[in-house]
């Protein structure tokens, strides 16, 4: 599920600061972001699909187009999921962070 090449510690026992965002491939994250944004924009742009023609098996365009997006959106979300897994591998957390957190409260 997660690539664990990135260890708890940096080079030579240096402790990772967990009050940072784990490193990620920004380009891939942007691609995932676009994949997630497209269905939202497509469906909120009601003017692009609020018509009756062309029909498909008797179904008005308005109806079958939105049904089509159920599948497209699902596929795009799944693709985004696979991309995000690669883009930001999980960075395991260690108990060391707890002291920091307690120190703050």
């Amino acid at each position, binding site marked *: 599920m997660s690539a664990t090449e990135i260890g708890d510690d940096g080079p030579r026992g240096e402790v990772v600061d967990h009050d940072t*965002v784990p490193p990620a491939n920004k380009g891939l994250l942007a691609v995932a972001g676009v994949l997630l944004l497209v269905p939202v924009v497509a469906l*909120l742009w*009601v003017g692009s699909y*609020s*018509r009756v023609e062309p029909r498909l098996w008797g179904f008005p365009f308005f109806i079958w187009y939105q049904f089509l997006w*159920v599948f497209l959106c699902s596929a*795009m979300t799944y693709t985004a999921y696979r991309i995000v897994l690669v883009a930001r591998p999980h960075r395991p957390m260690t*108990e060391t*962070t707890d002291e920091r957190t307690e120190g703050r*409260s």
Partner: protein
Amino acid sequence: MSGVDGAALAVLALLFLLVTGMGFWATRWRRPTSMESLDEWGLGGRSFGTWITWFLLGGDLYTAYTFVAVPAAMFAAGAVSGFFAVPYTIVLYPIIFVFMARLWSVSHRHGYVTTADFVRGRFGSRGLSLAVAVTGFLATMPYIALQLVGIQAVLEVIGLGGGSNVLAKDAPLFIAFALLAAYTYSSGLRAPAVIAFVKDTLIYLVIIVAIVYLPTKVGGWDHIFSAAQEKMAKPNAVDGKPTGAFVPGAQAHWAYATLGLGSALALFMYPHSVTASLSAKSRNTIRRNASILPAYSFVLGLLALLGWVAIAAGTKPIGLDGKPNAQLVIPQLFEDSFPSWFAGIAFAAIAIGALVPAAIMSIAAANTFTRNIYKEWIRPHATVQEEARVSKVVSLVVKAFALVFVLVLDKQNAINFQLLGGIWILQTFPAVVLGLYTRWLHRWALVAGWAVGMVYGTWEAWNVANPRGGVEHFGGSLAQIPVIGQMGYIAMTAFVLNLLVAVVGTLVLRATRTPAGEDETIRGDYFADEGDPRVQKVLQPLHQEAPNP
């Protein structure tokens, strides 16, 4: 509508008994060492994998009321107020994909059970946390009541509940809810998780059979769509305007889009959605579910079309009181077109479909009360066991309240409050979701934005009249959007106003150097996954030394 449909009732009762048995058995399912904590009773041990979560969230989000109300809206008012449920439940998933994983991670690290828990930890503000908790609690109550309305619709079509004797009339509903309350009390979130398998299987079965079988019976899809188009174009007797929309016209585009987006943003602010999400065992469980949950959206779309099938079939939804009631259209269509035994299965799908969300909602409302009101304000030193005890009792109280609400008051009240609930719950979005990304917004500015959104939204909803329904207030969820001048979903307008106030307020409070609260989270918390250790907290209420102004 004469007499009771015996065969349908027998099938319904049988399936109902089956799920009741499963509900009680659920205590032993994935048996924990102790049920006496909110993590176990209220979140199923935070242990559900992808498929259980899929059934649970599907059973939770697509409620019986949805199954009754969406086709009813299609039948009575057409595509704008009915079919928007489809884009709503599509755009929902990319949106939750983005932020729910973060909420899961930070909740995993800090043991949060509710969104108000998170807000308290993130902004160090008891006031903001209370606002979020109270909003969630208030928005959930009418939602539970509406699940009862879903069961009532089924019982009414079967022919039960018509007598003049108040006790006999409501006895079936009463028994159903008492059993639900009992097994939710003992099994917690495990009960709806187990029952959801039955509910979702029945729903898929019934809808697929209906969508394949019914159109051939009423003359095919061409006929169905032309019948719907004809009905929607017909002028209404009250105002002379067309009955509804077959396809949204240009003047309804904003309405359609804002209804879809506003509802999608709001849905995962409801406590019951959060409860089901946090019960997942890993952060990726949620993300995987975002790509497989649309299967339910597809079914919901088909179900919406059944509202138009009913137009072509000439279904007459008449209540036992002799008045037309669009809410009965789907049960009535099933009763008219299916053999009795299959109608019974269809009714069971709706009735059981009410039990799953009602259970999760009452658990979620109870958790919210326990964590964010009882423990926060009344008994700060409550133990984990005490939390579980209080939550179990509150889940009973919440259900009893919903029952009284539906039986004593007109059910239109529940529908009105549900409409308000949707507007209200969206006002917690800035604190919760923007809070997952940034602490830039000031806690008191968020409180101010929330308050403005609540007041504006309530006021606008109160002002909506609906001459066709003969009501002067709470006649719908659309009002004119200021500046843009088009009709739009009130919740969205209130939400934008809320954001504006929060941003301006933050600028002012920062300029005046008003202290922001302590943040107990660190950046890495928002990316944690199963296996990462939970933060061990010193149990001490916030701000003992420095009370909020």
